[in-house]
């Protein structure tokens, strides 16, 4: 692959964006746990960064919103856990293989990509439920641990896990940046805007969407493997949590601004912080407050915060450009 051709965007700009992206993330992951001892919070943040990036590749760039997106996360966690607990694989290899499982599963689901909009969303949700019910089924206890859950605490190493997750979260953000700046990413966005025009130009849009789907599921699988490792022992519900690893991620991405490079990161950083703050300090009202907050956000910032930031930036620094 020729890099000159792949990256349409100015490489100097890309490098600068990369710097802007890496610096705050690195600071956050490095200093965060020092300021505030709850490493688990930052671990989850890293996981959400990866998931938001993964979702952004498939939803932001192609316009396909999979409700049941969390299935790849869960399969990654399970793949890792099964290989370590039942087959004695080393963790690093198991996480990689777990992510490959997720990618394979996404290949199995590619026929769903033929569907449009909400139908695709619901079909992926059905796929999520079906896979969850298979993994938690007591008939498969010997293969997946079934309802008993799965334990691989023998290799539990939260600090190492956190370090790896933090690095990979940064890497995943850079991946989105690279995809966005590549001809591949532009093609995806063109497909999202007008698929027919793209098809007429002789581009196989299904192939492109499949690639995006594969990258996204692989990335989710890695996140799942790392999270599973961090838990050490988990039940099916812990990783197959629709609210935690599908819906919240979608909310983060939409809030930040889908299809943008920085949006999902900001979405995760802000909303995750708000959500955790509410759960820790207003725990009895968290459902109501967070619910109302989401309603207000979508009503008043419908296209994500990135758009507002851009507009604000124009107003502040170039008032004559403001609306």
């Amino acid at each position, binding site marked *: 692959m020729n890099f000159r051709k792949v990256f349409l965007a100015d490489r100097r700009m890309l490098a600068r964006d990369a710097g802007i992206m890496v610096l705050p993330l690195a600071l956050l992951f490095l200093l965060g746990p020092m300021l505030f001892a709850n490493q688990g919070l930052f671990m989850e943040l890293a996981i959400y960064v990866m998931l938001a990036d993964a979702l952004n590749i498939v939803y932001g760039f192609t316009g396909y919103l999979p409700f049941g997106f969390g299935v790849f996360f869960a399969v990654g966690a399970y793949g890792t856990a099964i290989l370590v607990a039942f087959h004695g694989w080393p963790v690093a290899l198991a996480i990689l293989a777990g992510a490959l499982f997720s990618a394979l599963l996404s290949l199995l689901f590619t026929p769903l990509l033929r569907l449009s909009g909400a139908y695709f969303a619901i079909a992926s949700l059905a796929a999520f439920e079906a896979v969850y019910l298979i993994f*938690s089924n007591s008939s498969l206890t010997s293969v997946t641990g079934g309802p008993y859950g799965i334990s691989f605490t023998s290799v539990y190493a939260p600090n190492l896990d956190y370090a790896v997750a933090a690095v990979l979260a940064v890497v995943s953000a850079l991946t989105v940046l690279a995809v966005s700046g590549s001809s591949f990413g532009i093609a995806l966005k063109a497909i999202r805007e007008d698929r027919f025009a793209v098809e007429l130009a002789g581009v196989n849009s299904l192939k492109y969407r499949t690639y995006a789907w594969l990258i996204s599921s692989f990335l989710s699988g890695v996140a799942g493997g790392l999270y599973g490792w961090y838990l050490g022992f988990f039940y099916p519900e*812990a990783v197959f949590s629709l609210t935690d690893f599908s819906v919240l991620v979608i909310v983060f991405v939409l809030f930040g601004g889908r299809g943008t490079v920085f949006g999902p990161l900001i979405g995760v950083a802000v909303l995750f912080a708000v959500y955790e703050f509410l759960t820790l300090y207003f725990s009895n009202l968290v459902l109501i407050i967070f619910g109302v907050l989401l309603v207000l956000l979508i009503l008043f910032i419908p296209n994500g915060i990135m758009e507002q930031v851009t507009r604000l930036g124009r107003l502040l*620094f170039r008032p004559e450009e403001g609306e």
Partner: protein
Amino acid sequence: MPSGVANRKVISQSQVTLLQQWGYFMGSENVTPPTGGPSGSRKKSSRNAIIAIVVVVILIAAGLTAYELTRTGKSSQQSITVGTLYAGSGSFALSSGYQLAGLKYWINQTNANGGLMLNSAGKKLPLKLVTYNDQSSTATAQTEYTNLITTNHVNILVSDFGSTLTAPAVAIAQEHHQLLFDPTASSPGFFTATNPYIVDLSILVSSQWPLVLAHYIISQKSNITRVAILYLDQAFTTAQAQTLDSALVAAGITPVYYQSTSASSAAEYSTLLQSINATHPQAVLNFGYDTNDIAFFQALNANSMHFNFVFTIYAGLEYAVLNKQTPAGSLNYTYTYASPPDVQYSNVNLGPTTSSFVNSWTSAYGSGPNFNNIAGYNAGLLIGKTIETAGSLNQTALRQAANKLSGNTTTLEGPFVLNTTSGAQLGMPMDVMQYQPTSTGLRPVVIYPTDLATGTAVYPAPSVALSGGSPAAVSGPLMQAQPASQSFLNQQAFTSESMAAPVQVRFR
């Protein structure tokens, strides 16, 4: 990837929209459209603005979170901090709330008595409770457990109700060398010889629950040979079903129906029951959570079905809920695990006896405690005793103290017996009881083991054709529970008394 040339042609057509909508490529000269786009220098500064704002927003968010979360700081030596989670909503909310209420009751009671004696402090210290709401989500629970340990620096870490919400705490507690006091999580998977930082206080390991029950059914082999077992696909229920199944098979009773399900609706239970009914079982055992039991009884009533022997878990564990939310008369002659408050232990040497606890609880809350209330309170009692025995809040010392208490402590929940290497609970057995209607309502009659029995079983359960609407206790020829007899052999009781006794109770 197809050649870049073909791509670029297409792309340049949609660039304008992309640029304007997604704001990313601003400043990227290569893709600047010939007309309509803002000029390079302008873009640069608005781009810088974005960057500045992005960085500021992220840092502010991080800073605020960090500040708010560190504010709680370290707890002073003036009190003992007890940290726990509860589910304020979601599928575990009900049971979790019961457990927390029990624990809180113990804390209030202890503080009313001036606190706990701590030798290392040389005085009695009051207890301070820190709680977070995990909303039945394991992901939330995971960060909140970490928060309790790392920012609240709790002295005593108590897990939430049940195995699902305890699971995320096990590895964290071990990693931070913090002893996890576990009231109601009984999954065998938690307890290993390599992890000394967990101790199961209030319930028997779930795979051991049906041991007494299995023993009882086997002892009734002359009456019960056709057994149907339906269980929910969850660790707690699957473990019990499997133990029971293998115990029965070993004794020569192969269940005629042995299936798992993930159903929880009345209509589905109805079909499952029809399928069970077709195997003509004498005994039907349903292992599920409260919501499953409600649907099960509803379906039983919907089909007007009757079995000689019906067993469910939650009929006993949450009697008040089940009795209120199932069709009238559903629980008549139902078998369930006998646990406190229905089982009373006479040799209690720690805390109140069951009856005095029930009295004080009832006068405080207006209704009697259920099993999970008692489990939460019992956990508190044992935590208190463990702290006093250890004399310090050193986590290893606490675990050793718990081991010391094992085998010579009996609370209202029964004997406290630990597997001292793994921390699993082996005491607090689950006995078998049956709800028998009396003129004043249902009476829980412990029927097995015989030394704790308060009456004899009524088998087969009389078929009660329900008129509905009326409460469980209605006029008519009702079974009177047998008086407790200390030494009768259960086998005898079946052959002589109850086999002769069955009365067809019908009102319509």
